[in-house]
C-alpha cells in the first residue's frame, strides 16, 4: 500500500469520489462561520471608519478613529497595559511550564496524574469565578496581605487592586496563575515524545540537568512552545472578564485594556466607531504577535 505511486495518486485525488463533494462537507461550517465571524469582522472594519453613537446617523470618519489610537492617551494606555500584561499572561506561564515540564521529564514522578489534575485546574474554572476568588485574595485584608503580615513582611502589604503601581501586575499574576497549567500540560505531552535516547546520549556526554534542558528538552519542545505562546497571547489580549470583575479598569485607568475599552466605548459611552477601531487594532496586534511567534519559534525548525 505504501508505495510512492499510491501516495502520489492519493494526493492528487480523493479516493473514489468526485472532487466537488469536498465543498459539500465544508459548506455548513463555512456558512455559519462566515455569517457570524467573518462578516461581523468586516463590519467592524467598516465601523472603525465612521463616527457613530449607536443610534443616530453614522458619519464618515476617515482615519480619525485610528489616529486617536496613537494620539489619545486614553487609548494609548490600554495597549501599553496589554503588552505589559503579556509578560504575566504569556511569558511567565511558558517559563514556569517549561521548568516544571523539564523537572518532570527527568525524574519519574509518582502521582503524576494528581499533580497534572491540580496544576491544570485553574484553566477549567470560569474566569468570572477566578476573578471573584482573586478579588478576595487581593483585598486589603485578604489572604495575601494577611500572609505578608504573618511572615513579618507587613510593610509590603497594600490594597493590590486599588494601588496605581500594583493593580496591573496584580491582575497579571492572576493571568499567570491561570495560564501555567495549560503550558505545563502541553510541554509535558511534548517532553514525553522526545526520544529517550537523546537524553541518554546527552548524559553519556556528561550533560547536567541544565545543559540537558537547553540541548535536548528545549529544542524538542519547540512546536509546543509555539502553541503555548500563541494560546496564552491570544488569551492574554482578550482578558475582558478578569478586568471587568476585578478592577473595571481602575484605579484611575491604570488597568484599562483594549478588550475592556471596546465594551466600554461601544455600549456605555456611545463611541461605537472608536470601539470598533480598538477591536480591529487588537486583532492586528494579535495577528502580528502570533505570526512573529511562529516565525521565531517554528521557523528555525526547517
Amino acid at each position, binding site marked *: 500500500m505504501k508505495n510512492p505511486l499510491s501516495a502520489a495518486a492519493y494526493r492528487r485525488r480523493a479516493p473514489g469520489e468526485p472532487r466537488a463533494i469536498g465543498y459539500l462537507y465544508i459548506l455548513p461550517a463555512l456558512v455559519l462561520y462566515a455569517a457570524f465571524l*467573518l462578516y461581523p469582522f468586516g463590519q467592524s472594519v467598516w465601523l472603525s471608519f465612521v463616527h457613530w453613537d449607536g443610534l443616530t446617523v453614522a458619519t464618515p470618519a476617515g482615519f480619525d478613529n485610528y489616529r486617536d489610537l496613537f494620539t489619545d492617551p486614553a487609548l494609548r494606555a490600554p495597549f501599553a497595559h496589554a503588552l505589559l500584561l503579556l509578560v504575566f499572561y504569556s511569558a511567565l506561564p511558558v517559563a514556569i511550564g517549561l521548568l516544571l515540564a523539564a523537572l518532570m521529564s527527568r525524574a519519574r514522578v509518582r502521582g503524576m496524574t494528581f499533580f497534572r489534575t491540580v496544576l491544570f485546574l485553574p484553566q477549567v474554572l470560569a474566569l468570572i469565578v477566578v476573578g471573584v476568588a482573586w478579588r478576595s485574595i487581593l483585598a486589603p485584608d485578604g489572604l495575601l496581605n494577611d500572609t505578608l503580615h504573618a511572615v513579618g513582611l507587613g510593610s509590603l502589604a497594600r*490594597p493590590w487592586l*486599588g494601588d496605581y503601581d500594583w493593580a496591573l501586575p496584580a491582575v497579571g499574576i492572576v493571568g499567570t496563575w491561570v495560564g501555567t497549567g495549560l503550558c505545563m500540560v502541553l510541554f509535558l505531552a511534548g517532553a514525553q515524545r522526545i526520544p529517550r535516547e537523546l537524553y541518554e546520549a546527552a548524559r553519556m556526554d556528561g550533560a547536567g540537568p541544565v545543559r540537558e534542558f537547553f540541548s535536548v528538552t528545549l529544542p524538542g519542545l519547540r512546536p509546543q512552545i509555539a502553541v503555548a505562546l500563541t494560546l496564552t497571547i491570544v488569551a492574554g489580549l482578550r482578558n475582558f472578564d478578569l478586568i471587568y470583575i476585578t478592577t473595571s479598569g481602575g*484605579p*484611575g485607568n491604570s488597568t484599562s485594556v483594549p478588550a475592556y475599552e471596546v465594551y466600554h466605548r461601544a455600549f456605555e*459611552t456611545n463611541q461605537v466607531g472608536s470601539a470598533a477601531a480598538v477591536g480591529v487594532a487588537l486583532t492586528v496586534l494579535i495577528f502580528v504577535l502570533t505570526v512573529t511567534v511562529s516565525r521565531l519559534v517554528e521557523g528555525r525548525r526547517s
Partner: protein
Amino acid sequence: MGFPSTGSRRVRRRAVPILLTAGLALLATACVPGTDGSQAYGPGNGPAVAVPDPAKAGKVTLTVWDQEIRGGTNGELQQLNKEFERKYPNVKIKRVARSFNDLKTTLKLALSGNNPPDVVQANQGYPDMVSFVQAGLLAPLDNYAGVYAWNTRYPNTLLNLNRVSADGTDFGTGRLYGISQTGEYIGVYYNKDVLAKAGVKPPKTWGEFTASLSRLKDRGKLPIQFGNLDKYPAIHTFGVLQDQLAAAEVRDTVLGRGTGFDTTATKDAAATLADWTKRGYLPKGSNGLGYDDAAKKFSSGDGGYLLTGTWLLADLKKAMGDKLGLMTPPPASAGGAPVTTGGQGLAWSITSRSRHPEVAAAYLDFITNKHAADVMTEHGVLPAVPGAAAERVDPDTVDGQMIAGWKRLSAADGLVPYLDYSSPTFFDTITAALQGVISGKTSPEKFAATLQQDYGAFMKKQRERHAATPAPAEPK
C-alpha cells in the same frame, strides 16, 4: 506536517492575495444595521388625559429594572410591589435588581435592545438620562405628572433634576423623564461607642469635626471608614468637602451655568481629601476596598465616621442598632445652615417602547405616593416627600435624625446635585481622577484641570448647539 514545506509555503504565498480579496469583498458589502439612524426612536408622548386604570389593562407583565438591592429599599420595594400586585391582580411585576454599577453598565444595552423593560431606574444628568432621552429611549411623563399631580407632590428643585430639554441636549430643564422615590443626602454616620471611647462628642461644627479626626487618630481609632474600589463613593466624600467651601457655586456648575471646576474650592477640597488620606484619617489603600466592605467594617466597629448616603441607613442600623448616629455634615458655625451633596434617588422612568405605559405610570405613582412614603419610613428609607409616618418617628432615633436632617437641608436649600451629572463623560472622568487624588498620584491642580477639561469641552459643545438652535423657553 503532511505537506512538504515548500508546497505549503507556495500555497501560503498564493493564499495571501486571495484572502485579501475575500476580505475586501466582505468589506464592500459590510454595513451595520442602524448606522443609517433607523434604529433611533422618536420621542414618544404619553397620550394620557385621565387617570389610567391598570385594572382594565388586561393581563400585564411589567418588567422593572432597579438597583435597590440594599436592605431598606429592597424591603420597601418588595412590599410595595406585592401590594401593587394585590391591588391589580391582572398585573405581574417582574423585578430585576442589580447593583448601581451593574445597572449603569447594562442599562443602555437593555433600553436599546429588542425587549426593553417597562420601567427602569435611570441616573440623572448627562451621562445616563440625557443620553437616553437623546436616543428617544425614555418616554416623557409630563402628561402623567399632570394627571397624578406629581408637579405638586415634589418641590421644583427635585423635579428639575429629572428634566431634560425636548431636543435632548440640556439637563435640568424641559420635559419630565422620571420621578424619584427616595430622597438622599450624604450624611456623616458615626459610631457612638467609638467616639465615646475616644472622648469625642458628636461635632456641632465643621471645625469640631475635623478636630475630632485627629483626636480619633491619636487614640488609635480609624477616623473615617472609606472604600473606593467601586469608584463612585469618592464622588460623595469629595462632594461633601467641596460643598463646605462653595456649595452654591458648585450647584450652578453642575447645572451648566457656573464657573466650572478649575476653582480654588475644587483644589482645596481635593487637597483636603489627599491630606486626610496621608494623615490616615481615611484608611490606607481605600482604592482597593469595596464600598460594601467598608460599610461592613464600619458597622463592626472599625471607624468613627462613615460619610455616605442615607440609602445605607437601614443596613447599618440592622448591624449596629443604637450605636449608630447620623448627622448632616456639620456647618461652619454651630446652628448654621447645613450643605451637602444629595438630592433624590435614581429616577424611575418609563421606556418609550413599553407596551403598557399607563400601567407603568400607575406603578410609578403607586411607589411614590403618600402610602409609599410611609412604607419607606417603616423600612428605614428616606422618602423624597416624607409623609405622616415620618412625623411620628422619634427624633432621637437615627431614623429621626435622618428625617430632621432632610427637612433642614430642604428648608435651607442646602442640597448640591451629584457631580457626575455634569457632562456625558463626567462620571468616568471624576471617578478616575479622584482615585488619583486619593492615591497621591494626581495633584489638586492637575485634578481641577482634568475636570475642567472635560467640563469645558462639553460646555463649549453645548453653547455651539444652543447657538445653532434657539434655546427652548424654560418652563416656570
